[in-house]
């Protein structure tokens, strides 16, 4: 394989998916593969966007699934409730935004983020996937 082709396929270049540092990227690779196979039958969403803008994302989902927007309109207030806080029949019943996604959404220390970014080769890989999937950066990608 030429150096040029290596550069054009960074996902393959990173190699072994059984390496723990590759695991967080597994779904990105799967999404990339699905998108290649199925193109218009796949809608790629960012969890961060669903968290921050649930109503806007749900409208996008309804349009993609060709569902009647009447179903969306009747629930739009629920979607506007910040992710899972359950104030108005949300998806789950949590008492605060901190608990909305459970402990999994607790913030980490900035130093830890920096280290994890380097260990995961975050910038290089994310740039490749974002371009390949045709999705956009979100605020949390830039830190």
């Amino acid at each position: 394989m030429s150096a040029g082709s290596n550069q054009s396929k960074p996902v393959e270049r990173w190699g072994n998916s059984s390496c723990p540092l590759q695991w967080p990227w597994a779904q990105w690779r799967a999404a990339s593969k699905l998108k290649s196979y199925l193109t218009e039958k796949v809608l790629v969403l960012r969890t961060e966007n669903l968290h921050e803008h649930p109503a806007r994302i749900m409208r996008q989902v309804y349009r993609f699934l060709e569902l009647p927007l009447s179903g969306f309109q009747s629930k739009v207030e629920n979607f506007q409730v910040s992710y899972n806080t359950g104030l108005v029949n949300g998806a789950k019943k949590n008492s605060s935004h901190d608990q909305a996604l459970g402990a999994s959404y607790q913030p980490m220390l900035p130093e830890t983020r920096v280290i994890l970014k380097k260990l995961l080769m975050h910038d290089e890989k994310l740039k490749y996937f974002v371009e390949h999937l045709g999705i956009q950066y979100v605020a949390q990608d830039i830190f």
Partner: protein
Amino acid sequence: MLGRGSNSWNSILRWWVSFFFPITCCLVCCSVDATNSSLRCSSFNGQGTSFELEGVRFTHDQALPRQLPYEVECFRLPGGEQVCLPSWIITASAKSGSSALWNFLCQDPTHHCKRKELHYKGQPLLPYMRQMLGQSARKASGNMNYDLGQELESFILHSTCVKFLVLLRNPVDWVYAAWQFWCNKLDGKNSHPGGWVSKTEGAMKRTQRISIAYLQGIACLQAVISRNQ
């Protein structure tokens, strides 16, 4: 646990060690959610076409199971049995918001949601499809090995109707979330019984002087060894 107020190198190292061991569970914990909608698949035009998978011939069949009050894409087997695909599938790693999206969608009564996840872990395809049919009047979904699985992918490639909603989370955030969820016992019921924390504390004592880069090397080395065994 890495406390919010602590920013020492030791804490970071401790966090990484704590994360390193329990993350193994994540390989089999990624989820795929699926369900059926009550809507007709507008692009379905494959009636009578067939394909073979796992030695079984599947033939597109527009006749619907009587128990289903709505139309989905179905296949007829040689013995006359019918299996159906869901209308849409949510695929996402665990801790990526797939359950929230599913819950949002299932607030719409037309989706007939009942059960969120079926568990697909590479078992023979046909029983899984039968399971989907059994759930399809309400809700079908499954757990996957971080991927759809080759057989199910092949099956779905023959589908004209199934749509995929893929949720992707920033990997840095996902790593931390996965550790919080499975390893740090903050979500008690989901944490590993016996406690990863106690195990990793012991590991930490043995590796206090080992750098993060070394741990990274160990992780990858273990992966390479297991691959070659």
